[in-house]
């Protein structure tokens, strides 16, 4: 186990060096679908983090019992359970948000970030590493969604989290809150981050 990253490394890696969206390009369905508003994006990030954390903990606890050919079944079962719980909780305590997110909460079940973290980290490392990995990746996911949502909501509606920011004269680029806006924003931000990274590594 000496070649596995430590819990602290796992935590830091999730935020930027191995960011699930900008570095691993995983979980792009919610990234494109629910980033037309900051509130939805943050709720989605919270839901994914909770599911990821619970799934990582359970998988880490039972990692020594896993049969290699049945591990994906166990991961999916665990993830589906926690997603359903989160979905019900949202419907009970954040009804409007649950309506706004619609099918994208149940779709967390097939979000590859979680299955990837179960496979890469939780099924190989202990509780502490699995937990800090989940939180690190969750923060990384949240920051990425927020970065896209800020651009889209601001340009598309002139508001942030539903509060008007830009003057009323702003023409509201409707395309930014429509699906094409998601692809445009994500592509440009990804390019920007790659460019910054290249410039930095050229300097070093």
């Amino acid at each position: 186990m000496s070649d596995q990253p430590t819990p602290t490394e796992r935590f830091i890696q999730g935020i930027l060096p191995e960011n699930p969206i900008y570095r691993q390009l995983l979980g792009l369905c919610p990234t494109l679908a629910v980033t037309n508003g900051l509130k939805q994006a943050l709720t989605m990030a919270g839901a994914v983090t909770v599911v990821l954390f619970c799934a990582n903990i359970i998988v880490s606890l039972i990692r020594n019992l896993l049969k290699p050919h049945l591990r994906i079944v166990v991961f999916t079962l665990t993830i589906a359970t926690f997603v359903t719980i989160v979905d019900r909780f949202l419907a009970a305590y954040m009804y409007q948000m649950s309506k706004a997110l619609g099918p994208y909460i149940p779709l967390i079940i097939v979000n590859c970030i979680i299955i990837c973290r179960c496979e890469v980290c939780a099924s190989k490392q202990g509780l502490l590493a699995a937990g800090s990995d989940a939180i690190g990746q969750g923060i990384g996911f949240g920051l990425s969604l927020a970065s896209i949502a800020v651009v889209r909501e601001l340009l598309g509606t002139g508001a942030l989290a539903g509060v008007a920011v830009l003057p009323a004269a702003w023409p509201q680029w409707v395309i930014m809150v429509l699906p094409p806006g998601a692809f445009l924003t994500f592509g440009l931000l990804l390019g920007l981050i790659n460019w910054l990274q290249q410039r930095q590594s050229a300097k070093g």
Partner: protein
Amino acid sequence: MESSSSQSAGGFKNSNLVQAWLVLLLALCFGSALAAVQVQLSDTIAENKLNETLEQVPALIWNEAPAPETVQITPGTLSVEKQGQASSYTLYRVAKDDKVAGWVVKAGGQGYADKLELLVGVDADVRKITGLFVLEQKETPGLGNKVIEPDWRGQFTGKATETPLEVVKGHGEGPATIDAITGATISSRSVTNIVNATIANLKGKLDASGGQFSERSQ
């Protein structure tokens, strides 16, 4: 090592059921956990849905809602025949001081993107539309979803029900016209058609004494 020992143990250890004991056990645990969550939360979720509807009801009858304690909202149903098929509307009788002030009807139909669900408020004799609210819609953001805005749905308030409403582009003249949303004529038409169909179905069946309304025991 392990594989050789399991091979010698024969069929028992290799049987699929034995190998999957962890999956089966987890499925059982998770299943019970989910059942417990559902039992805990299902009432709250149902209540949320009902509250969302009930909250809107007074505003669909009166411009300025009277004090809540003087208003009685009674849920019920009304059976109608649509193209030879019997169906029923969910509706709410809204009364103030035991006098029926109007009716709020839940109506649904196809929109541009997905199903639309509306609440239509009418006065006691279904002579006038008193309000419209969009409960559920997945129309295009920025275009069709403007049907939820008070500015647009407010056009329905006060319209007489004698003639079906008509959607016009630009600013319509006349008492029975609804201005289409720019870029979302289909969404505008869908909402208007649902309202027209609902009113046609309800007309003559409801009056201040109740008509064919049947109360639903809760």
